[in-house]
């Protein structure tokens, strides 16, 4: 573990300045991922800037009716918020599906989407990894790929993004508020994360020193009819093999609007635009759900590997999409 300094500013501008001015500095939120990385040698910052006092820990209402969730809101506190529970079941369910109670009490809403892949090769400094050490090669290709990508991967990286919350935020088109040395900007949540391409060391489109200060949720009344379905190997405390965040709006016997995002399948939360396009305006029928899922997964590229690879994920993702849509529309279809 490399020695580091710790700053605890109470002001976001100060926090940004401390990191932006020091290429060796990193923001520290709840620490549920970064502290592990310090111990494992995966991250070796020389300076940590704790932002849990520099950003808001409040959920406030925006003029358009959507809530603004401060970056320092603890995951556990978010799931207890009555507005969130009533209006965004898929987001609350996604947070509750992640980690454990203890971790959720530490982790923050701003930090959660920035957690890094749990690829076992990324987390082991004795194996090659282009994400951890650009140019060193990908240890996962041909290795243990059960938790790896089937969509949007590259020869350089096949890792998946582990956050459940991020999948739900991608589905609802949340907006990320970012403060940098040059001021504030907003990023559509679906543009926050990136595909690996030839630069897998970059998980997001944030520049060094840019700090997430809040996440704005759109009013989105349809989100009341939503769910987060996480498929995993054990009942608790496991990353998704596949997850689906979905919200749906019905107008008579037609689907008037639908939002779907997938987790556990790609380097970023995978917004299922193709499936949504098939579903919009269609009747909520099982066959249509299957067609939509197949369209979304048409380009899936499963991986071989130790312990059987991840070829099952394409089928699993399709079946989970169908099951989620069925659950959301049951009663409306008969």
């Amino acid at each position, binding site marked *: 573990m490399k*020695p580091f300094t710790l700053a605890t500013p109470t002001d976001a501008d100060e926090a940004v300045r401390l990191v932006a001015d020091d290429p060796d500095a990193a923001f520290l939120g709840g620490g549920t991922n970064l502290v592990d990385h310090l111990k494992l040698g995966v991250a070796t910052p020389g300076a940590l800037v704790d932002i849990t006092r520099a950003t808001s820990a409040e959920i406030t209402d925006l003029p358009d009716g959507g809530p603004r969730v401060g970056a320092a809101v603890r995951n556990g506190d978010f799931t207890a918020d009555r507005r969130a529970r009533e209006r965004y079941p898929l987001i609350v369910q996604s947070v509750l599906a992640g980690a454990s109670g203890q971790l959720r009490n530490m982790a923050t809403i701003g930090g959660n989407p920035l957690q890094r892949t749990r690829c076992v090769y990324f987390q082991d400094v004795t194996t090659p990894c282009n994400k951890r050490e650009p140019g060193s090669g990908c240890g996962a290709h041909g290795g243990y790929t059960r938790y790896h990508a089937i969509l949007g991967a590259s020869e350089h990286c096949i890792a998946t993004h582990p956050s459940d919350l991020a999948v739900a935020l991608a589905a609802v088109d949340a907006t990320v508020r970012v403060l940098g040395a040059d001021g504030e900007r907003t990023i559509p949540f679906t543009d926050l994360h990136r595909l690996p391409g030839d630069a897998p060391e970059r998980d997001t489109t944030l520049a060094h020193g840019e700090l997430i200060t809040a996440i704005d949720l759109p009013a989105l009344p349809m989100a009341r009819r939503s769910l987060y379905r996480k*498929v995993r190997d054990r*009942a*608790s405390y496991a990353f998704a093999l596949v997850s689906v965040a979905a919200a749906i709006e019905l107008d008579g016997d037609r689907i008037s609007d639908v939002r779907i995002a997938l987790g556990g399948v790609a380097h970023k939360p995978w917004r299922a635009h193709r499936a949504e396009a098939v579903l919009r305006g269609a009747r909520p029928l099982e066959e249509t759900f299957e067609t939509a899922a197949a369209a979304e997964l048409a380009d899936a590229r499963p991986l071989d590997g130790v312990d059987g690879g991840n070829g099952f994920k394409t089928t699993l993702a399709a*079946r989970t999409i169908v099951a989620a849509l069925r659950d959301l529309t049951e009663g409306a279809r008969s």
Partner: protein
Amino acid sequence: MSDLLRPVAIGRDLVRRDGMDKVTGRARYAYEADVPNASYCRLVQTTVARGRVEAMHTDAARQVDGVRAVITPFTAESLHTDGGELAVLQDQEIAFRGQVIGLVVADTAEAALRAAELVEVTCSTAPHDVALSADRDDLYKPEKVNPSYETDTSDGDVDVAMAAAEVTVEQTYTTAMYHNNPLEPHATTAFWDGEHLTVWDSTQGVHPTRAVLADLFDLDKEHVRVICPYVGGGFGSKGEPHVHVVLAAMAARAVPGRHVKLALTRQQMFSLAGHRTPTIQRMRLAADRIGHLSGIAIDVVEHTAKMKEYAEQTGVPTRMMYAAPNRATTHRLAALDVPAPSWMRAPGECPGMFGPEVAMDELAEALGIDPIELRIRNEPDVDPETGHPFSSRNLVTCLREGAARFGWADRDPRPRAREEDGWYVGTGVASSVYPVNRMAESTATIRFERGAYVVEIGAADLGTGTWTTLAQIAADALGVDVEDVSVRIGDTRYPVASVAGGSSGMTTWGSAVVNAARAFRDKHGSAPADGAEADGSTEDNPATEQYAMYAFGAQFVEAHVHRDTGEIRVPRLLGVFAAGRIINPRTARSQFIGGMTMGLSMALHENSVLDPRHGHVVNHDLAEYHITTCADVTDIEATWLDEHDPHVNPMGTKGIGEIGIVGTAAAVVNAVHHAIGIRVRDLPVTLDKLLPGL
């Protein structure tokens, strides 16, 4: 065998005497030993699986503030050893990936970690081989299997039985590589006072650890003290000392006057603390139409380390479980470039009752006979292996009692016949067995001090309840109130005691305590003077020459398989055991359900993924190596028969630490098959193995 003790304290569900100290944090474990002048040790490991350390540069490490010592294979003291697992830092050869090739001692754990990262290592590499398969051409027959069973056995002719049988099952089953993963990591605090070594070590046996350390460091045994009042789980992995104990002692010798603390990281536990070999089990069953077995055979292939042989006795339970005139068992090993496998809860029986108990379910299905009835029809009158009568064998009663409690009678045998809320529902059963083991050597001292009785014995409590149960045994053996008995264990200052392994603790230590109590009363009568004391030791039990001694059990499982995703959940587990007399129902229940939970974990989750390219287990932490969580078990129940066995020992106990894990995984597989009609023969049962059949 004399009459059993009259149970007064025995049988009471007393709370653990150490419980309050543990839940309030007052109980100090090995790493937490309250010592002055602590330094911290961090290990340096190889990142290649085979080869040789050519050079190590330690200058940068030594310059880290607070570093007191760096030891490498080039500088380490010589141990008195002929090689093997504990010959650490004795040469430059690399036998497996993750092998320790150095250590750092510093004033803080952080400085030690930083310095360990800065040690530069140059290795030459050689091709490594870690891939087990049944068709390797270099499989060999070990001389014995753990601990000293025959490697192969054959009675009659299974080939002939198979050829003549009306119905046969011939299938191959596999179990994965597993790591014990106790919650408390392997940890040691070590201190040298001249030529006297003291270690606080998390161990299943202070005396066995002392013996090993005395040999390695060429010390008089009396100059080594091992202290271990509490253990946060071991499951066999703390049964024999592993390298960390040796390294802590080496590290401490390098910093005179200081206590050195060393705890393995979770990742290090995947290469330095033993594991259970993967097994490949070819099963053959031959039967007639009414379900009588004419033949049963198991051919086992498993791995061992090139560095140290360990042969898991996976085929052993097949030798005695069912009445079949033709029986055969074999064990073959592949010697690989892996860390040494070792004991893990119910070595032999745990993997070895997987293939056979799934095969029995497959036979029941092929015959159209209820799987419980099939087992009853093959109940032997005497031990098929030795021809001796069983001291007691109540498998059939366990099966029937379990069937009644579980609601088995209403079971529709057809697979995929029940669905509830989108989940297919199935039930399954399997038998459990575990031998009654007694270790050779243990002595207890009982002393009368200030109006109460003190029992001293260098035994261990792994969380199992020894602190409490030995007091119960002593109280009944002395004929006094249990509150008037105190127990002192976990320190080599107390008389020699055997390792807590093989479910032998109560039989071995308990017998010593009973003999000590009898000696005490013989010597001092019922009104002893203050300071009166007597010793007693465990003895050979002549009845073992006349009787086969085993505990039995039956495990029932309800499994749910999700219609859409193939997710598997097990909402209900029931175990019924016949394990002799139960000393303490509270701690016993904990042992049984702990074993069953671990069996469930083996069935659904546990799987050490050995990457053949790198040569190490890549999912080496508790986020990626899945162990069953509380959410995976919603209703688990263990119960037992009131079994009277006058032959096993004066307490009438059979040992309960391991039988709970035996058979559980087979029962899960059988229940999953009943739920959806898919037979998974390779553990763990995961949804990807079910999806193609949904």
